[in-house]
């Protein structure tokens, strides 16, 4: 995996086939949460924490306002989030290692990366900035596991470790993508031109 780097009017990252396949599975799972749930009456809150984090309560102190907001905005928000995740899936499911994102579309992709990270963070119980620090420790275990170096018989929740690794990879990708965007703003201030 290579993080996003600026190339003219594009940001370009690089993922190998296994990385793309792993991410595609996770992203497809999140995409399913952004689709309409026919069993949930319009305007009511999602029952699971992951969907609720994607579509949070807009007015915890005022149920009527919260319900009106949900009815008014949720269909549009769903459609937007789904289409952004689809743009990510389009890259992840094609046989192409270079991930080319036009700078004009970079914020949409950064938003989709955020949605996937929000769902994973909820799954991992990440609630405070301190939890985020603790996650870094888990990442070292994840690295060892991914390299196949973890001793047999060690009691590790492999699914959790895998989600930690995916979360950190997505954080790193998003960070680099936003840096390309900020870089663009910097260019504008300097009057343009590549180094």
């Amino acid at each position, binding site marked *: 995996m290579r993080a996003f780097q600026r190339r003219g009017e594009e940001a370009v990252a690089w993922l190998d086939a296994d990385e793309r396949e792993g991410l595609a599975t996770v992203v497809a799972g999140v995409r399913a949460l952004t689709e309409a749930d026919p069993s949930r009456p319009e305007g009511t809150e999602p029952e699971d924490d992951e969907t609720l984090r994607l579509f949070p309560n*807009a007015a915890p102190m005022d149920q009527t306002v919260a319900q009106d*907001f949900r009815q008014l905005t949720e269909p549009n928000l769903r459609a937007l989030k789904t289409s952004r995740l689809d743009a990510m899936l389009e890259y992840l499911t094609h046989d192409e290692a270079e991930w080319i994102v036009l700078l004009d579309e970079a*914020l949409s992709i950064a938003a989709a990366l*955020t949605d996937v990270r929000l769902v994973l963070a909820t799954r991992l119980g990440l609630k405070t900035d301190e939890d985020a620090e603790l996650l870094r420790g888990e990442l070292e275990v994840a690295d060892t596991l991914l390299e196949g170096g973890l001793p047999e018989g060690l009691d590790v929740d492999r699914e959790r470790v895998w989600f930690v690794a995916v979360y950190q990879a997505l954080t790193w990708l998003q*960070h680099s993508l936003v840096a390309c965007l900020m870089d663009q*703003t910097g260019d504008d201030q300097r009057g343009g031109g590549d180094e």
Partner: protein
Amino acid sequence: MDPRETPETGSSVSTRLEDVWVCIVWNDPVNLMDYVTHVFQIHFGWPRAKAEKKMLEVHERGRSVVSSGSLERTESDVQAMHSFGLWATMRRSGE
């Protein structure tokens, strides 16, 4: 500010404090500082310095009021924040 089309009898001002809504962005451990700054710049049209200041307020104080106005305008700001994955809520200004 939106003037009320049918002001209640006895109300001498067109916009009362309770008709003003605020959009609040809350801190969370997922959203990256640079990303939040960039979202503020793009959505609110703020210069980088103001966007950074507001982002730091969210990060350090746990929340920040990012906009105020009519119900409709505030709803639209909260919706935009949710579309970017930021944790935003709204309430009446006077509460």
